[in-house]
């Protein structure tokens, strides 16, 4: 079972996304064999968390079993969160200009849900060192470091910073990463600590998946990264495809 930990629907202001739709994602998932994708709506990442979350739930309802919802929490809007029928919570400290270890995010950690957070080396909001801080505070919260630090010069440091925090997993998406770096992360952190994510529709699902599919990995490790690890973390939250 192939699971994409990091997906989106919707548009983004910086650049053209030729196909920002849920239907388009489903067509591509079918084309390449992705079973399910965790999504947040880019409206929710951006200016309206509550409205964007509603759109993400609607997309998930329209495609049963294919989309899990990462509901966005905006610390300024303090939007309500649910605990059932979701994969977890999505945080974007850089867009929200709120450091990951800031107390304004405490309502999220207190839920105990899996958390996917943007992680960007040298960012004042989401540097991997902040993942180590919150992982130590909340060792029972599964925490996915989106992009594993984003910039290639920071990947190895990101893996080192969270090496002793077993609840942190390194997620693979980003425009600057490579199949070689994914294999390196698996070697450094252990393949059981790396999860596939694409960042589609922001990025192209096929490119993100292809980096893992064609990375120089042993097949058991590839299977863990492509879905085994995320299935273990999500447990009952992973609803079967209908």
């Amino acid at each position: 079972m192939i699971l994409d930990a990091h997906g989106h629907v919707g548009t983004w202001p910086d650049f053209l996304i030729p196909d920002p739709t849920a239907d388009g994602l489903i067509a591509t998932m079918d084309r390449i064999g992705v079973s399910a994708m965790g999504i947040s709506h880019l409206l929710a990442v951006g200016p309206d968390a509550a409205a964007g979350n509603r759109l993400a739930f609607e997309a998930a309802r329209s495609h049963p079993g294919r989309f899990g919802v990462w509901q966005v929490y905006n610390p300024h809007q303090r939007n309500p969160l649910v605990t059932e029928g979701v994969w977890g919570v999505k945080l974007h400290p850089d867009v929200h200009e709120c450091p990951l270890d800031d107390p304004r995010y405490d309502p999220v950690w207190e839920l105990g849900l899996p958390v996917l957070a943007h992680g960007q080396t040298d960012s004042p909001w989401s540097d991997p060192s902040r993942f180590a801080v919150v992982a130590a505070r909340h060792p029972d919260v599964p925490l996915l470091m989106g992009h594993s630090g984003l910039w290639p010069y920071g990947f190895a440091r990101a893996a080192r910073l969270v090496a002793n925090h077993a609840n942190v997993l390194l997620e693979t998406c980003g425009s600057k990463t490579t199949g070689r770096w994914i294999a390196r992360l698996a070697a450094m952190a252990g393949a059981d600590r790396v999860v596939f994510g694409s960042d589609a529709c922001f990025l192209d699902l096929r490119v993100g998946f292809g980096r893992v599919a064609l990375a120089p990995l042993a097949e058991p490790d590839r299977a863990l990264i492509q879905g085994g690890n995320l299935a273990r973390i999500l447990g009952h939250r992973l609803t079967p495809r209908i």
Partner: protein
Amino acid sequence: MPKLMDAHRLIGPVPFDDLPADPRPEMDRLGIDRACVTHTLSLYSGAQAGNEALFALDDPRLIPVPAVLPGDIALDEVLEWDVPLVRLCPRRHGFDLNGPTSLRYLSALTVPVAVELDDTDPAQLRALAAHLPDLRILLLNPGYRRLRAVAELMDAAPRVVLEIGTVNTQGGVEWLARRFGARRLVFGTGAPVLDDCGPRFLLDHLDLPQHDIDLIRAGSLEALL
């Protein structure tokens, strides 16, 4: 399976990472038959040193793409190179793409030129195409964030051909193919600094007619060269 050509690869060491200096094992692993290669010395040391290392290669799988540094490398020497494509690095090498020296060199060339988008910008390329409308330009590593500007450039400059390795937003390659035709798109990666696994997988899963995919695999690049 029709052959596969990578329009954008590097050979040699880089100063900031431990990457394979020889592209051929990875080309073999990913089923890439031939590649246009520039030597890393041309990018990270000196243009001439990299070109000499490139010309010492003797492998028909590797198509040499030496760097032209207008003013530093004599035009007569450039015109004697037996290569189908040359590389320009205006920002990296600190020259004006539309300066008089560059235009003198480029107007004398009979081969296309390859340039990374980050080594210049769309306005500079539009100006170059206006100065030299017959010059064929292979735009490398265009990325995905400036797709609108790249499309405007391709509208204005019909002899610009695009390498798709970093066109990495959902459906971006299909959008370009519908707008400009697959004859203006070529497969490329920028490996090993940039990723080759994702673009290689994308190529096998494009939502395009097989004829278009074959053009992107090799036909468009062969026509350019």
